[in-house]
């Protein structure tokens, strides 16, 4: 199986550890991972902010870059949702017939990281050990967009020595919403305040999720409160070796 990593522009720039973690986990499971350097961005920011024509070249680039791979794995639920739900719409409304065909070809092979592990590879125990107290935040795109369901929990439960704790009002949005956090910064802050209170009440040492954007938002709020709770992408927990831990 030819597996490509679509890391996303945001993770590529801000969270390279997440990319290395995905590669580590997939290689540990016996797969070879490629990172095609022509990849950039899925266009989500432009699409969600109303700049659709600007997103179309990115849709085109994505389809060209990942043409020919058996699977495209991305550690971002919101970017996976953007590709799955919106790339066909953008191709239909703004693209050529050729682009529509390319998009239709590539989209079914795009998998969010936990989907790929659980559904495609049929694995829940990836051989990780992480002796820490961890809470999982189901981001809106994981929960209501991709409907990841209990896939992340199943993966986490299989991690050796992990202590999973419940996050109060877990299904509530953290208030990020991309440019929402800039355009409606105060409303976003009010939502964030409730989310960080939930994280602190959970007693977790580490908060994880399937999207670094929400984690950066929550982590930014925790850091401002001088909290010691760390935020980590789920993949980085799954990449921790037996006996390693941090």
């Amino acid at each position, binding site marked *: 199986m030819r597996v490509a990593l679509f890391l996303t*522009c945001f993770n*590529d*720039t*801000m969270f*390279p*550890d997440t*990319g*290395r973690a995905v*590669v580590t986990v997939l290689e540990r499971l016996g797969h070879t991972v490629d*990172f095609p*350097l*022509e990849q*950039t*961005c899925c*266009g989500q*920011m*432009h*699409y*969600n*902010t*109303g*700049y*659709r024509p*600007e*997103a179309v*070249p*990115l849709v085109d*680039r994505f389809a060209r870059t990942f043409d020919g791979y058996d699977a495209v794995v991305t550690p971002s639920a919101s970017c996976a949702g953007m590709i799955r739900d*919106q790339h066909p719409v953008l191709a239909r409304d703004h693209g050529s017939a050729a682009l529509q065909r390319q998009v239709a070809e590539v989209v079914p092979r795009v998998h969010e990281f936990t989907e790929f592990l659980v559904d495609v590879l049929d694995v829940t125990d990836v051989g990780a050990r992480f002796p820490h107290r961890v809470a999982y935040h189901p981001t*809106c*795109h994981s*929960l*209501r967009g991709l409907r990841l369901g209990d896939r992340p929990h199943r993966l986490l439960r299989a991690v050796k020595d992990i202590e999973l704790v419940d996050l109060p009002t877990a299904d509530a*949005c953290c*208030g*990020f*919403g*991309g*440019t*929402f*956090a*800039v*355009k*409606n*910064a*105060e*409303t*976003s*802050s*009010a*939502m*964030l*305040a409730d989310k960080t209170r939930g994280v602190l009440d959970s007693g977790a040492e580490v908060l994880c999720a399937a999207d670094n954007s929400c984690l*950066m*938002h929550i*982590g*930014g*709020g925790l*850091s*401002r409160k001088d909290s010691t709770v760390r935020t980590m992408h789920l993949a980085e927990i799954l990449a921790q070796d037996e006996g390693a831990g941090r």
Partner: protein
Amino acid sequence: MSTPGDRGVVWLGSPSFPDAAREALKDTQLRANLARATSTIRDKRLAVASELDDWEELRTSAAAIKRRTARHLDHYLVQLEESVTAAGGTVHWASDAAEANRIVTDLVRATGEREVVKIKSMATQEIGLNEHLADAGITAYETDLAELIVQLGDDRPSHILVPAIHKNRTEIRDLFAAEMGHWGEPAPDGLGDEPAELAEAARRHLRQKFLTAKVAVSGANFAVADSGTVVVVESEGNGRMCLTLPQTLITVMGIEKVVPTWSDLEVFLQLLPRSSTGERMNPYTSTWTGTTDGDGPSAFHLVLLDNGRTDTLADTVGRQALACIRCSACLNVCPVFERTGGHAYGSVYPGPIGAVLTPQLVGVENAASLPFASTLCGACYDACPVKIDIPEVLAHLRAEVVEAERADRRAPTPEALAMKAAATVLDSPALLGAAQKAASLGGRALARRGRIGRLPGPLRGWSDTRDTPVPPAESFRTWWRKNRSQNEGER
């Protein structure tokens, strides 16, 4: 042809959503009231919805019925007119708020009455009927408890189902004590703030109006095209009194409220109470078909209101908002509404549904901030009993706002310039790589103790409550190129 200015819906002079929300967020009492009220009703809704094995099928059916009816709206509206007329009612067509207000005012004037009693109605809120009647010397008395609270306080509704949700019971007690004396029976001395006491005070206050009013004005939850039956669903029984005691009944109904048959109605009567009040069935469901000799009003007028709805119907993505049955489930699950309350939306339709309905009814340029008043979290879509994909419509309307700005302005907005620049960088791995290096250097220059604190300009609001992580020294692509891509040529 009506223009958005004739349509009402929005409160003129309202600030943009971010500005209004900023003010509303300072009211910690409001936030506490809203958080308590919405979480209670959320839990009730989930409990009663989960009782039905066929809840998802009901939602799918409801969406399909609404879609089919909208596609043949011209047919069903004419059928409704024929049925209502045959049953002794009179149908009026109003293209916008101004026309609807004129029709209702003329109808009331023709009765010679100077007072009307009103049943809670979003359509009459939308067109600003009470204010229009007042200008014509006619007083409209709201009989729904929450609408009465809003009216006595000279306030605005902040929720579709619970228009006074922004007030707690102490505030309501004080309002009743101060205002009920101006007409009707005053509040009793020593009125407490127990809900039962407050409801009793409202009962007594309104009683005389019910018994003497000759004209009632209502909205409609549904109208059945093939029988000409109009339906009002309510909790308190005030509606039942208004619908049966007066001689003349005037109903103002949005044209999207028509359903083809009683079998279609059945689907909605299961979904609506569960979604709105979290009850299996609402206490009062009133249905009437034209007029009946010796029973109820002897004159019935149905005003069919367009007011931007056919414009909305023309939009293949946005038209799904017309399926709304005004249950408020989306408001109650919305994390934004829960923090800001309804007034921040500057419209009689607040919350997620308001954010998609208002801009379509009045034009995106007249409500440009509303499509952005959401994180696109999707809770509204999951809760919607008629499966309106509100996030999809929000994103669609955002694009319309941006396109309207592009067409309207000679120079692009700073945001448009930034988006264009970002699009150029993101469509080039080389430029992205350069930008990553710049971000890394810049970020580390700004960092203090391993994090970036306050930022200037448009990022100030973000940085008020959040630190930003310091970008890594090396992007993933740089690391990959150095360590993993021996076989791929350097670019």
